[in-house]
């Protein structure tokens, strides 16, 4: 079998020191293969977001290793780390994190601006991504004036505009009603199936989790159930 796109080996993550020390992750080990859709499920405070941040190279584990396509990510520094973040990942957050007073187009172009892509090409690609999400007519609108569903679709457009290998979605439907939430879910699973983008969803929602290929249950910083392992 191919090398997994992400390999996590005995990752610990603790916050604080001494008596205030808190272990958010207490040793998790698993592989993620390219093209999988994975749900990370658990109660509030169980360590889901912490795990996602470690996987997305936003935070370094206290101990243990995270390998990205066979490369130990602790060896990535500065430019290489930023390149890996920019080229490999796309993010969808519950709170959207759109720049309120900038246009939808500007928001979607941001990752490409960071990547240093020419303005004309940025625009073309951003419009193509908005097209894919049926948001072209809103391109010139300010992000603040969009509905929740439109915001989340803009965020997804921004997440996929750099052709990422992996999309991280932290409670992507948390702020949406069921109908809009279902639409956003469809979009994400469609990207996963049609474009082979690995999808990692952090959620409380059992229904959303049920649509994923694989479910990983986290409790108190430990991986309690992993459906692949159960199946295997």
């Amino acid at each position, binding site marked *: 079998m191919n090398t997994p796109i992400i390999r996590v080996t005995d990752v610990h993550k603790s916050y604080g020191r001494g008596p205030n020390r808190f272990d958010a992750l207490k040793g998790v080990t698993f592989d993620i293969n390219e093209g999988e859709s994975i749900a990370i499920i658990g109660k509030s405070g169980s360590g889901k*977001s912490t795990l996602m*941040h470690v996987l*997305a190279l*936003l*935070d370094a584990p206290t101990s243990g290793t995270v390998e990205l396509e066979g490369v130990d990510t602790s060896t990535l520094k*500065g*430019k290489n*780390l*930023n*390149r*890996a*973040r*920019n*080229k490999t*990942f796309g*993010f969808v*957050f519950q*709170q959207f*994190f759109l*720049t309120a*007073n900038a246009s939808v187009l500007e928001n979607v172009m*941001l*990752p490409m*601006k*960071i*990547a*240093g892509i020419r*303005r004309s090409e940025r625009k073309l690609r951003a419009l193509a991504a908005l097209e894919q999400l049926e948001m072209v007519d809103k391109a010139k609108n300010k992000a603040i004036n969009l509905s929740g569903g439109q915001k989340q679709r803009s965020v997804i457009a921004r997440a996929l505009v750099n052709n990422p290998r992996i999309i991280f979605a932290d409670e992507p439907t948390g702020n949406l009603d069921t109908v809009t939430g279902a639409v956003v879910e469809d979009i994400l699973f469609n990207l996963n199936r049609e474009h082979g983008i690995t999808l990692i969803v952090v959620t409380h929602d059992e229904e959303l989790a049920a649509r994923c290929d694989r479910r990983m249950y986290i409790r108190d910083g430990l991986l309690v159930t992993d459906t692949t392992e159960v199946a295997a």
Partner: protein
Amino acid sequence: MKTLDLISSAASNTFRSKTRTILTVLAIFVGAFTLTITNGLGTGINRYIDDTVTSIGAEDVMTVTVTPDADSGFGGGSGPTEYDPAAVAGGGFGPGEGGTVVALTPDDLDTLATIDGVLDVEATKSISPDWVQYGDGTQYVTSIGGLVSGQTVQLAAGAAPATDASRLELNLPVSYVEPLGFADADAAIGETITIAITDAERTQHLVEATVVGVAEESIAAPGAGGLVVNAALTDSLYETQNIGIPTDQQERYAQASIRFDPSTSSEEITALKERLSNAGFTGTTVADQLGTVKTVIDAIVLVLNAFAVIALLAASFGIVNTLFMSVQERTREIGLMKAMGMGSGKVFGLFSLEAVFIGFLGSAIGVGIGMIVGTSISSLLSGAILADLPGLTLIAFDPLSISVIILVVMAIAFLAGTLPAARAARADPVESLRYE
């Protein structure tokens, strides 16, 4: 992120919170405006002085006096100064004015002529007339000065007194024209005026001379704002004044003018002064005399500039504050940009460029309005209270100091921006994204 994108993002970010940006820009504007005006003042006055020195055209002339002994005069020890029979009352333009100076004797003049670099020596005959009068008009107290060779007069009418003419000729300053009773400057040309002078035996003599020109007044005009006379008139007045003085005492001069090669460099002039000083003389050029004026003006401008810089420093705290607020507000955005692979250096650049841009806006507007206001003030004043100093643009601007002001303000803004920008650059993406 490309540098150009970084700059344009920074520029557009400054306009996100318009009120805040405008207030900060306003604070910088005040500092930059003041700096522009005070600098313009220095430039204007110093440029006027330079122009005056050039227009006099006496760059190759030096005024020489005998260097007083260390223990005589005011500079020396305390107590009364011992009487020196060789001392004469100083007159004209130069050190010792109003006091006494050690006189130059014909021997001294010969010594001066032998000093290396001296082309020509001419004793300055100091003349103290009692009054000047036109026809039966009012008598006015005046002073008299000659033209040093190479010196030119800025004329309002007529011509300069002819150096080699045997006729007694003089120039009147413009301010004398109306009091003496002439309709205007042109009406004075060709008229005869009377100069009264008292000799050593207290007898008053009247000397008549022809007005050939009317001179503009300037701070360094020949004759120091009085009558400018030709050699023939100088000699005539000097002889009259010396009636009754024994012949061996007559040739005593408070100062002399020497000429040197006009192409002499300033180092060579310094060397020449050195040689003069070794021989016991003090040499002063016109530029030296005005140099002291310039030093004073530079000092005043420096003090005014210091106030402007203080205003700028206060404004820079405004920048610090504005940017800290901006960093605070945009914590999530910073976190997101970092999560998307924007390096800390670029984040730092983004915020410090924002500061620089605010600084640029404030200084460009300040300098622009400062130049408009300064220009109108000086054109208003030159028609009114400065009308007596033609050619003076009180507040003038040169491109170099204007660009220096803008650059300095931008540099100050950059420094002010480093603190908030460093905070933004240090921000941890995870913390920023958790931030509520």
